């Protein structure tokens, strides 16, 4: 199949189907309602299920139920909707069920606005729900990358038995770009007999499986948390992803940026290069696990005077950038939120300004 011109939201829906996910529960919210609109038609065509929940709270637990039964399942929402699902995310993670959540972020806090934002970085990478849990968080910067990440999210969720979150912003959902659906990312069903409540009928072992998040015994709960932590440490070892841009030669500043914002930064870097000012970028493709080593190494390069975290939020990712760099060079932040996306010219001014004195 050749390239097709598709809106990000529709491409995300199609990608899930191509990845073998035939269960989609959701509740509409701008700017991602086109996913549900698209899948309400497509799921019927491919014999899958689309069910609109009565609220995002309900959707969260529909996902929990389906995932606990061993079904491949996903949902999409936008910021306020993800807040409502956060309780379920904590439960699902504790009960170790694989599922995929897509957050097409809009401006917050509160009802905020409907335009693109990256204000849910903390919520996605540090919690949102209660307890010591982590999501595997991927951040696409194009419609094609959103397709790939959605398709890859299912095997990652199943590898770790942990929810994966795709963190996009309103522009990723609303833009149209040419996309291809890679055949090699089609995911075969995996055997979940060891843990899923998928019926004892076909299993050789006749002991029932139990999916739960209640551990009243403190010793048992501690060891459960240690086991979860071991999974998050394994994510850090095995599945960190990032893209390095213009890092080969010498450079005077390092930008760390993700998603739509990173594309604006890439153009700013190209323009600054024409002026003779070299700037590099690390673009995290996984926000958890964060590419700590790559950021640290890039910031520690001789000649790099400053690292700047550029985000459509009020200084969230910058904390991970500081933590990664560990004082090897000064760390700054620049950002805007509420739906205004900085232009390349604005980023150029910011970088030039930081290099002045």
């Amino acid at each position, binding site marked *: 199949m050749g*390239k097709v*011109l598709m809106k990000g939201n529709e491409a995300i829906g199609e990608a899930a189907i191509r990845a073998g996910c035939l269960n989609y529960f959701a509740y509409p919210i*701008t*700017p991602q309602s086109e996913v549900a609109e698209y899948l309400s038609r497509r799921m019927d065509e491919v014999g899958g299920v689309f069910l609109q929940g009565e609220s995002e709270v309900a959707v969260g637990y529909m996902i929990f139920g389906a995932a606990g039964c061993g079904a491949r399942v996903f949902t999409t929402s936008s910021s306020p909707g993800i807040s409502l699902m956060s309780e379920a995310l904590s439960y699902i993670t504790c009960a170790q069920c694989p599922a995929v959540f897509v957050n097409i972020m809009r401006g917050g806090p509160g009802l905020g*606005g*409907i*335009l693109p934002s990256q204000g849910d970085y903390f919520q996605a990478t540090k919690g949102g729900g209660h307890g010591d849990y982590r999501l595997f968080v991927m951040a696409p910067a194009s419609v094609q990358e959103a397709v790939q990440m959605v398709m890859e999210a299912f095997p990652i969720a199943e590898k770790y038995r942990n929810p994966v979150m795709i963190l996009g912003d*309103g*522009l990723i959902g*609303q*833009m*149209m*770009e*040419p996309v291809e659906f890679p055949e090699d990312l089609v995911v075969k069903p995996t055997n979940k007999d060891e843990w899923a409540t998928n019926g004892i009928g076909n299993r050789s072992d006749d002991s029932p499986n139990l999916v739960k998040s209640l551990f009243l015994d403190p010793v048992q709960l501690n060891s459960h948390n240690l086991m979860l932590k071991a999974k998050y440490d394994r994510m850090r070892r095995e599945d960190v992803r990032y893209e390095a841009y213009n890092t080969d030669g010498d450079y005077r500043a390092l930008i760390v940026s993700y998603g*739509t914002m990173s*594309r*604006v930064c*890439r*153009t*700013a870097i*190209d323009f600054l290069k024409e002026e003779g000012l070299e700037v590099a970028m690390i673009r995290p493709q996984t926000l958890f696990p964060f590419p700590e080593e790559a950021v640290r190494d890039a910031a520690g390069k001789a000649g790099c005077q400053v690292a700047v975290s550029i985000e459509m939020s009020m200084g969230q990712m910058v904390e991970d950038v500081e933590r990664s760099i560990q004082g090897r060079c000064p760390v700054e932040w620049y950002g805007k939120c509420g*739906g205004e*996306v*900085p*232009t*390349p*010219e604005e980023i150029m001014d910011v970088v030039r300004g930081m290099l002045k004195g």
Partner: protein
Amino acid sequence: MQSEVMFAGFGGQGILLSAKILAYTAMEAGYEVVWIPSYGPEMRGGTAYCMVIMSDRPIGSPIVKNPMHLVAMNRPSLEKFAPVVKPGGVVLINSSLIPVRSQRDDVDELAIPVNDMAIEAGSVRSANIVALSAFVARSGVLSIDDLRESVKKEFARKAKLIPLNMEAMDRGIEAAQNA
């Protein structure tokens, strides 16, 4: 080489569709392309605008301060975007609805009565196709024959509208060449 085209007008003037047809034509011609709608809280009758970026290299920023070209279908759009068009770009003005001009002497200004031409072609609803064709003919960003194929494809499921839109295209192209 990258060029950006800003389509702007009232909601209901077919802004998003004409931008999509341009984006599709560019993709089929082998370009990298991004179609970026305004999706703010505007309602029917409000302003609608949509940017198409095409390039022979991967496209970085989808946010562009100074587009290369402008297709303005109503007055607020012209007033908002004409000052930011890059020098040398095409500024198409729908003179059926816009009594003023761009006040720029460093752009290629093309003022044509898009709505009236569409009515003559058979329906005012083809105004977006008149404007799109005139723009492509004037700017030369893509081939007119390729554009014709895309318009036919877009209306394939409403085939009875194809003759109307071909007529709209012919009028747009002719106006661009004679103006």
